């Protein structure tokens, strides 16, 4: 284990950058803030317990919407990758591309008028915004599996289902995880818009402080969102590395 450590570190050196940027960036912002006089409005917005609650909402919006995307988009992607679905594959992916092109800001407001304000609507909007990367990567990941492997599997007597579970999905997992990573990062960013329909999140202090012209507080809260996005992307990157590590 100790003998393997240097090689392991060398291979994954690129993964060190993100945490360092996050820590250094947050430290700089905090140092800058503690040396400044804050008025009562800013103090209320930067109160740790208030920020912590918004942070919790933000995480919930991100995680819940990503989980829903995984639950819906993975099976749909698997179904679309089957030969029987070849005819509707292109059309469905094109429709997904169209949905993706809609601006998240407009979607979230329109959905609020249709479904009412609140967290559920925000999660639905986030699901719509991050559905396509997971769907596309699932389909692409499964279609790029070497047909010779599928022929070998079927030729040895694996059923279509066994071939999918034991050969196709394991080989498509790295691409699928990459899609989920994109969805997560999209959702962290888009969740800042949830505040406009009363679903909280870290967008709330940002938009209110922007409204009241408190640049100092905007800087701090924006820095927290940016750090969160980088961190989640980093975690997903580590997960991706672990999953695909077996395949080199």
């Amino acid at each position, binding site marked *: 284990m100790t003998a393997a450590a240097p090689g392991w570190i060398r291979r994954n050196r690129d993964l060190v950058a993100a945490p360092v940027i996050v820590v250094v960036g947050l430290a700089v912002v905090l140092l800058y803030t503690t040396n400044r006089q804050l008025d009562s409005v800013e103090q209320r917005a930067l109160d740790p317990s208030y920020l912590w609650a918004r942070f919790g909402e933000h995480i919930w919006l991100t995680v819940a919407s990503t989980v829903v995307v995984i639950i819906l988009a993975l099976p749909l992607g698997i179904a679309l990758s089957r030969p029987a679905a070849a005819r509707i594959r292109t059309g469905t992916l094109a429709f997904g591309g169209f949905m993706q092109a809609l601006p998240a800001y407009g979607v979230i407001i329109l959905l609020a008028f249709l479904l009412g304000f609140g967290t559920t609507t925000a999660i639905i909007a986030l699901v719509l915004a991050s559905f396509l990367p997971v769907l596309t990567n699932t389909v692409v990941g499964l279609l790029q599996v070497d047909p*010779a492997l599928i022929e*070998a*599997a*079927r*030729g*040895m*007597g*694996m059923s279509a289902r066994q071939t999918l579970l034991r050969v196709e999905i394991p*080989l498509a997992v790295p691409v699928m995880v990459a899609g989920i990573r994109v969805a997560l990062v999209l959702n962290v960013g888009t969740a800042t818009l949830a505040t406009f329909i009363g679903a909280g999140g870290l967008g709330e202090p940002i938009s209110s402080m922007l409204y009241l012209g408190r640049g100092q507080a905007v800087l701090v809260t924006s820095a927290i969102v940016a750090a969160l996005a980088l961190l989640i992307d980093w975690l997903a990157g580590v997960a991706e590395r672990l999953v695909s590590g077996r*395949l080199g």
Partner: protein
Amino acid sequence: MIALEGVSKIYPKQSKPAVTELNLQVPEGAIVTLIGPSGCGKTTILKMMNRLIEPTTGRILLAGEDVTDANGDQLRRRIGYVIQQVGLFPHLTIADNIAVVPKMLGWDKRRVTSRVDELLHLVGMEPGDFRDRYPRQLSGGQQQRVGVARGLAADPPVMLMDEPFGAIDPITRERLQDEFLEVQRQVAKTICFVTHDLSEAVKLGDRIAVFAARGRLAQYDTPSEVLAHPADDFVAEFVGSGAAVRRLSLLPISQLELAEIVISGAGAAAKDRPVLSVDDAGRPSAWHHVPGSERRPALVTVPLSATVYEAVDVMLDGHAPVVVVVDDDGQPRGALRWDSLVADLRPNGQPR
């Protein structure tokens, strides 16, 4: 034994059949090579045997049992399958790749492990070195050895092989073919072997099935018959101008009448027969006299177990019009002369 009876295949939206009314019987324990030009349907025919492609009409018989409507997945677990691209699963170790079918058949762990080791030995790979490696760590030749081992894993009576050595460099291919024949001597499977390489078909096949377009079986016979007596113009053209030379590789020297040779010093000088000097152990050391040639030619020997093709090869290589045939102990058994070889192999067999 596997047999196709009146099998046709018509692909949807195509008016003409890909395979028409085919009858083909592969005898127990024999290698049958399926050969023909590209697109003649030989791979389709192979895939109909394990029903990866379903025949439109006709019956498939496996060991006398009609399996035309049997469960396809169950059927395929009883038939070994080896393809050109090998198709080893990159996320599984060599051992796990070989173990796929035994595990599906519910073998217990110990039996699977010992079978994997046995098969790796059989294909000439040390289990301790290769068991836990991944396919990408193996050369192409090693991968195809594992592919063959995987096909043999559950000890199926029938093996289907689709150009298994087609993507491998010529030198490695030659070696794999020899090893494959050696393995077959031990396991004696019924094998269908698709190839587009006539030399391979001749070398490996106990019988050759030559296919013309639309899966028409143009000739089904032993390699020497196919080469010597093509059934029709198509086969004659397909077998081509190299047929006579190829036939030499099917002809063992032991089946020829060899020219008598005289050992020098052992009796009267024979003007009309070649005279050979031997060493103390009785092995040939040099020519003493060869009738019809002014200078004594270089001494070349060839084992009795070799083919005429190999004898011709050493003659051309050594610029020798005559070659000494020796037995396993190195004792001379006779001579093979270039001029008599040419005369005897004339189609009409007429003497000079």
